[in-house]
């Protein structure tokens, strides 16, 4: 017991040390020969992407339907977000490292790419790869490497790039693609459906507990590129999986668009735990540059007694717009959403969740912690819907905001919809507080610097959420919190 505490403390100590020289550490660019499709968006581009991937007709048709529908849509507006107009014709929709030949093993991945991921702390080569975590590495538009695929295959677990899944398991793609987030869902999801270039696919067969964590690491490198990837995770009856997601991008003055779609399907008694540490380039101190992170994430608890749990730590991006959601269709199914969203300087975040209760005795929990510093704006937006059929269902929501200065904003927008349902219960608690002068002084009087005091208080504030993350991720997340909050007080 003590030893365990000791190890954890040790890591926490190291973490504090690393703080001293912190800034956005992942802002470097990789020089590598790329296959880039010219800027702009039209039907030909959609066809070209599909052709480059050698896709079956059904998928091309699906893309085209999405594209045609997208052309009839308008970009939505949000009262709490200021978004500079996006010129969709100025975006590159496909950029992939030029391949020397078709890759058979990781040894054949370009040095530059291996090096890039090494610098990001994600070693891909056989000797050094992370133990206990399988990684799918996505570089701009394509997946460049997937580790442990073969080992997982022995158990029947499919873990591969989306493109490979289209080739090798078209029946699964056909069955599940767009089944949770239809191509008409919303402006950015529809755009993604038309032009998505790759992503990650996971399939956990019946009764299997995935023996290692699965993860994707997304890297944007090329200037002016938009990254559009899809993640599809299917957990068959009685299976369970932990999935982790991380992301970074170079520092550039222009805004770049990342519009992903994630779909999760949990069948009877299946469990999916999905954790994200989002660290896209947030822009500089004056708010110049940074990623627009407009992501649609949704899971369906399709089967009885299934469970989907979202945990997210959002520290990056100029603008974050995402609402990882759960459709609780199966009886007794459980949805969870744990979120820490940090905004500093001129960052904006509008994030939250939707819990749609359909099955009987369904339960959902929402814990959201928003932290704002500088001139930033941080909103929680969450919907809880109890449909008529969802008898005896429960929701508990807790949304806490912490302000680190007096130029930032925190907003909470809870939406409750209860349809003729008397047996269900919805609870909502919300607090907003300013970081306490008394707390800061108390810690300083014990020898902690102002920055360390802020970091300690913020980490304490987020504890409930950070506890939901796997260990390595929690340490990473704590580091990110500290970096993101540099100079946020005062």
């Amino acid at each position: 017991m003590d030893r365990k505490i000791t190890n954890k403390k040790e890591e926490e100590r190291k973490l504090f040390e690393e703080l001293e020289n912190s800034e956005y550490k992942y802002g470097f660019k990789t020089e590598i020969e790329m296959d880039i499709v010219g800027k702009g968006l039209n039907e030909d581009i959609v066809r070209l992407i599909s052709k480059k991937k050698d896709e079956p007709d059904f998928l091309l048709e699906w893309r085209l339907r999405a594209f045609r529908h997208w052309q009839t849509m308008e970009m939505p507006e949000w009262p709490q977000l200021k978004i500079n107009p996006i010129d969709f014709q100025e975006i590159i929709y496909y950029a992939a490292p030029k391949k020397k030949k078709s890759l058979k093993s990781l040894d054949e991945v370009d040095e530059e790419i291996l090096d890039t991921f090494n610098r990001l702390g994600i070693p891909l080569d056989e000797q050094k790869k992370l133990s206990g975590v399988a990684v799918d590495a996505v570089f701009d538009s394509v997946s460049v490497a997937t580790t442990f695929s073969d080992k997982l295959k022995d158990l029947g677990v499919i873990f591969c790039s989306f493109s490979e899944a289209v080739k090798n398991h078209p029946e699964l793609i056909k069955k599940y693609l767009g089944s949770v987030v239809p191509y008409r869902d919303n402006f950015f999801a529809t755009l993604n459906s038309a032009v998505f270039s790759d992503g990650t696919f996971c399939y956990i067969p019946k009764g299997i507990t995935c023996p290692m964590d699965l993860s994707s690491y997304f890297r944007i490198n090329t200037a002016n590129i938009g990254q559009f990837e899809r993640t599809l995770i299917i957990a068959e009856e009685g299976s369970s999986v932990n999935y982790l997601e991380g992301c970074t991008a170079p520092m550039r003055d222009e805004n770049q668009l990342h519009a992903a779609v994630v779909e999760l399907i949990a069948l009877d008694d299946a469990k999916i735990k999905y954790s994200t540490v989002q660290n896209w380039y947030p822009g500089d101190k004056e708010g110049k540059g940074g990623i627009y992170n407009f992501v649609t994430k949704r899971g369906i608890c399709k089967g009885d007694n299934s469970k989907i749990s979202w945990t997210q730590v959002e520290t990056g991006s100029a603008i974050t717009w995402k609402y990882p959601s759960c459709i609780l269709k199966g009886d007794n199914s459980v949805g969870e959403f744990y979120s820490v969203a940090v905004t500093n300087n001129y960052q904006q975040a509008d994030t939250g969740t939707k819990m749609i209760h359909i099955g009987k005795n369904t339960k959902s929990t929402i814990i959201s912690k928003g932290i704002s510093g500088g001139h930033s704006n941080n909103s929680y937006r969450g919907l809880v819907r109890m449909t008529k059929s969802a008898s005896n269902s429960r929701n508990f929501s807790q949304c806490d905001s912490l302000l680190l200065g007096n130029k930032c904003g925190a907003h909470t927008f809870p939406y409750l919809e209860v349809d003729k349902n008397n047996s269900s219960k919805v609870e909502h608690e919300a607090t907003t507080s300013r970081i306490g002068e008394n707390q800061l002084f108390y810690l300083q009087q014990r020898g902690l610097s102002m920055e360390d005091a802020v970091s300690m208080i913020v980490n304490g504030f987020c504890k409930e959420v950070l506890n939901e993350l796997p260990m390595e991720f929690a340490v990473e997340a704590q580091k990110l919190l500290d970096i993101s909050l540099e100079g946020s007080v005062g």
Partner: protein
Amino acid sequence: MLKIECLSVEIDNKEILKGINLEVNKGEIHAIMGPNGSGKSTLTQTIAGREEYKIRSGSILYKGMDLSKMAPEIRAREGIFAAFQYPIEIPGVNNTYFLRTALNAIRKHKGLEDVEAFDFLKLVKKEMKEIGMSEDMLRRSVNEGFSGGEKKRNEILQLSILQPDLAILDETDSGLDIDALKIVSEGVNRFHGPEKSIILITHYQRLLDYIKPDFVHVLSNGRIIKSGGSELALELEEKGYDWLNDLSEAEGECK
């Protein structure tokens, strides 16, 4: 160790301390007594470096350094410790982690290595036992949900772990029953030594039954109106503060 000269302090443009003189040498225990609103807590906060308390005139020298030029955390690392009357709760921050971070910040300032996690835990457990704190306080958040007495004990735990050179105990006795008062006092006495100075700020004499001061000062309306030995405390207990009101002793008036 500490030399306060003609110290005048204001908060929100209101003068609270109106010319204080106080000298505390190595190894001495000074008790500062006085009625409510006399400025006792202001003195603690000023020495600890709370920003809102502005020094209007006068000076505080600590180990020959001008305190007004030092940030609160530097004062702490140089060995000033203030046990507060109302210790602050910090939700979600593990008590042990907090204490260890503080200790390491102080050690780093002194050019020492971080304390070994194992040694630290051993030390903390030993001290907790002495103060009668249950070990589950190690795992709890700093002061969160602690009773008044538990908070005070936690302050004494910090005192014994951080080993400052000058400890200011602000109404540490308030809200403690006799048993707790004894235990806390024993903790303070264990801490005290020829190199360690203590300022006890208290309203009541009863604390001084357990911690024997070398000097007693009476603070009233922002001034020290009487100083003496430990017998002065007994006199105060007997007669109250009123008989002193006529005195405006203040040796060495400040302008």
